[in-house]
C-alpha cells in the first residue's frame, strides 16, 4: 500500500523530523497541562503538553500560548501532532475553547488523511482532552460544573470489547456517536478497535451489536469470521499395538536403559526419546554421538534392532 498523504502531511512530517524552527516537537517543562494517548503496544502514542498565560483572577480565561508533543508513530501520527500544536497556538484558545478542536479539524489542516489513518487525528484530539483535564485539576477548575464531561474514567472502567487495543464499551459508545461511526471499518479507521484479531466484530456485545444498538438497526447477522483455535497438538489418537501405548513406551524405555544407553555412554554419548507414535520411536542422539556421521546407522542398526528384538517386530526408529 503506497503512501497517499497530502503534500501538507508530508511537509509537516519532514519539517518535524528535521527539527525545523517553528515546529513543535518536544516537551514543556513544568507544563500547565499534560495529556497522553495511545501505547507502544498499539503502535502509536503521543505526549502532549501546553503552557498557558494565566489570567490573574479567572482560571477559565487562561490562554494557551505554547504547545509541544512527543509522538511515537507513523508519518501521519507525527504530522497530526504538528497540526494539533499549530492549530492551538494559532487560535490563542483558552483550554476549554481548545476542546472544540475535533479530529476533523486536524484532518482538514492536514488537507486530508487516508481513511485507515484517521485514528492518528483522533489520537491528537484525545491527548488534547487529557491535557485539558490535567490543566483543570491543576488550576482548580471544576469542568463538571461548567457542564463539560471529561469521561476521565471510561478508558479504565467498563467492559473491554476490543482486547487487542484494550478499548472499553463506554469509550466505544461515546466515540461511535461523536464521530458518527456507522460500520466496523469506520470504527477501526477511527479508533483502531477491531483492527487486529477481529474476534470482537460479530460476537454478542461486540462491535456490530453496539452499532446496531446505537443506530437502531435491526441486527443483520453477517456471516462472521469464526474464531480460529489452535488445536492441541498432543490430541493424537494412538493406534493399537499389541501392548497398550503405556506398556509399549515403558518397554521401549527399559530396553534402551538396559541395552542401548550403556553402550552409547561408553563413547560419551546418549539418546533422547522425542516421541513414540504407535510403533514409531523418534529419537535423537546426544552427547558425543550428536552430529556423528554414523548416527543414522547407529540408530538403525543398534537401536532399531534391539527394540525389534525386545519389544515388537514392528518398531521403526526415526532419527530426529
Amino acid at each position, binding site marked *: 500500500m503506497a503512501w497517499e498523504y497530502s503534500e501538507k502531511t508530508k511537509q509537516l512530517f519532514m519539517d518535524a523530523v528535521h527539527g525545523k524552527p517553528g515546529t513543535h516537537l518536544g516537551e514543556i517543562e513544568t507544563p500547565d497541562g499534560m495529556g497522553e494517548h495511545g501505547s507502544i503496544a498499539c503502535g502509536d502514542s503521543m505526549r502532549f503538553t501546553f503552557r498557558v498565560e494565566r489570567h490573574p483572577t479567572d482560571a477559565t480565561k487562561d490562554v494557551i500560548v505554547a504547545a509541544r508533543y512527543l509522538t511515537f508513530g507513523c508519518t501521519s501520527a507525527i504530522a497530526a501532532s504538528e497540526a494539533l500544536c499549530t492549530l492551538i497556538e494559532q487560535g490563542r484558545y483558552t483550554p476549554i475553547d481548545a476542546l472544540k478542536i475535533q479530529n476533523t479539524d486536524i484532518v482538514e489542516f492536514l488537507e486530508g488523511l487516508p481513511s485507515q489513518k484517521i485514528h492518528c487525528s483522533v489520537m491528537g484530539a484525545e491527548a488534547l482532552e487529557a491535557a485539558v483535564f490535567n490543566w483543570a485539576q491543576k488550576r482548580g477548575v471544576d469542568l463538571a460544573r461548567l457542564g463539560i464531561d471529561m469521561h476521565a474514567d471510561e478508558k479504565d472502567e467498563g467492559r473491554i470489547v476490543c482486547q487487542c487495543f484494550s478499548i472499553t464499551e463506554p469509550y466505544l459508545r461515546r466515540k461511535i456517536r461523536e464521530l458518527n461511526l456507522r460500520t466496523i471499518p469506520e470504527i477501526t479507521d477511527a479508533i483502531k478497535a477491531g483492527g487486529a484479531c477481529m474476534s470482537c466484530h460479530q460476537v454478542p456485545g461486540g462491535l456490530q451489536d453496539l452499532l446496531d444498538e446505537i443506530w437502531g438497526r435491526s441486527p443483520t447477522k453477517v456471516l462472521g469470521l469464526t474464531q480460529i483455535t489452535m488445536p492441541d*497438538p498432543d490430541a*493424537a489418537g494412538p493406534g493399537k499395538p499389541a501392548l497398550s501405548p503405556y506398556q509399549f513406551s515403558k518397554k521401549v524405555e527399559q530396553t534402551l536403559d538396559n541395552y542401548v544407553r550403556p553402550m552409547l555412554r561408553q563413547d560419551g554419548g546418549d539418546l533422547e526419546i522425542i*516421541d513414540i507414535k504407535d510403533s514409531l520411536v523418534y529419537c535423537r542422539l546426544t552427547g558425543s554421538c550428536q552430529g556423528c556421521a554414523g548416527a543414522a546407522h547407529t540408530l538403525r542398526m543398534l537401536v532399531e534392532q534391539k527394540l525389534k528384538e525386545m519389544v515388537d517386530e514392528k518398531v521403526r526408529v526415526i532419527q530426529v
Partner: protein
Amino acid sequence: MSLIYADNNATTAVAPEVLEAMTPFFQTEYFNPSSMYEPARRTAQAITRARAQVAAHFRLADPKQILFTSCATESNNAAIVGTARANVSRRHIITTAVEHPAVLEVCKEMQRDGRDVTFLGVDGDGNLSIEEFVRAIRPDTGLVSIIHANNETGVLFPIPQLARITKETDPSIVFHTDATQSVGKIPLDLENEYRDVDLLSFSGHKLHAPKGIGVLYVKRGTACRPLLIGGHQEEGRRAGTENTAYIVGLAKAMELAAAHYEDETTRIRELRDRLESVLLERIPEIRVNGRAAPRLPNTSNVSCHYVEGEALLYQLNELGICASSGSACTSGSLEPSHVLRAMHVPFTAAHGSVRFSFSRYNTRAEVDRVIDVFPQIVANLRRLSPYWDQTRDRPRES
C-alpha cells in the same frame, strides 16, 4: 538522485536477458501451443524446453513434475486445497505460525471447512522446534506445509529433515514447502537433499522474471487434485492456455539464477553482513531479527526500538531508498507482523522493523549509502519519541 532498490523479497527487476528471451512470444511466436499448425508446434516446443530447463535447475530427471501456474499464491492454494480434496479422510494439516498469508490463510480456510490445523510456533530466533513438529504428526495427518525461507526475516527451516521425518513416519502424508523466497537464492536438489519434498511452490518475480508466472512442483505419484479445471493443459493438472512468454522468461531467469548462486552466497551475503554489523555498531537499541538462525544471504530484518517503521520507511523513501516494514501501519491490518510476533519480538521493537533485501543488482556503494543515512533517520524519530531520553540517547526510564 538514483533509486536504491533494497526490497527484492517483495519483487525484483526483470533481467534484460529475460525480457529479451520473452519478446518473440508476444508478436511472432504468439500461437496457442494446443493448436495444430506448424507455428504452434514451435510454441509448444518452447514450453517443453522451458519445462526441461526448470526441471534441470532442481536436478529433476522428469520435467513433467513441473507445473506452470500464474503465481506462488496459486501454487500454494493448489497444493493445499488439492491435497485436501485428494484425501478427504485425512483431516489434519500441520503448518507454522510464520507462513506467508498465501499458506496461512488457506490453512485457516481449511479449518473453517472443518479440518484440524496445527500451527507450529517458533522461538526468539525464528527457529522451529523439531520435537514439537514430531509430536504434531497424527495418524490422520494428510499434509505438512512449511515455508522454506521466511519472506520477512529470511530464516530458513530445515526442510530436508522435516520432509524426511514426515515420509519416514508415513509415506502417504504429503509434504509441501513454499519456497518462494529461496528458489533462485540458494540451490535446491529435488532428487537428493530435498527428495522427500512432494510439492514445492515458487514464483518468477522474486528471481528477476516478471510477475504472473509461478511453478508448482508435483512429485510423481503425489495425490493432489487440480485447482483450475477446464482444459487439458499441463496434463489436466492445471487448466488454462499456457503463458508461453512468461514460461520462457522464467526458464531464462532460473538459468541466470543458477549462474549467480555463488555471487548470492558471497558478495551479497557480505553486503548484507556489512550493513548489519555497521548498523548494530552505530545505532543504540537495535536488533537484527533472526540473526542467530540459518538465514538467506540477502535478507536483513532490523528493529529499532521506540520508533515506528512506517515513519522510517517514509524518510528512506524521501532519500530514494526502497525497503519495507513489518510495522502495523504498513500491514493493512493494525497489527505488527505476525512473523515478528510469533518470534516474541517485543512490541517496542516489532513496530520499528525494517526489512532490507538485496539482489545481484545491488552494489556496495548502495549499501554504503544506506549505512550513511539510516542512523540519522532513526535518530530523527527518536528525537520525537516519548519513549526516548534525548539527553542520554537511550530509552527513557519509567
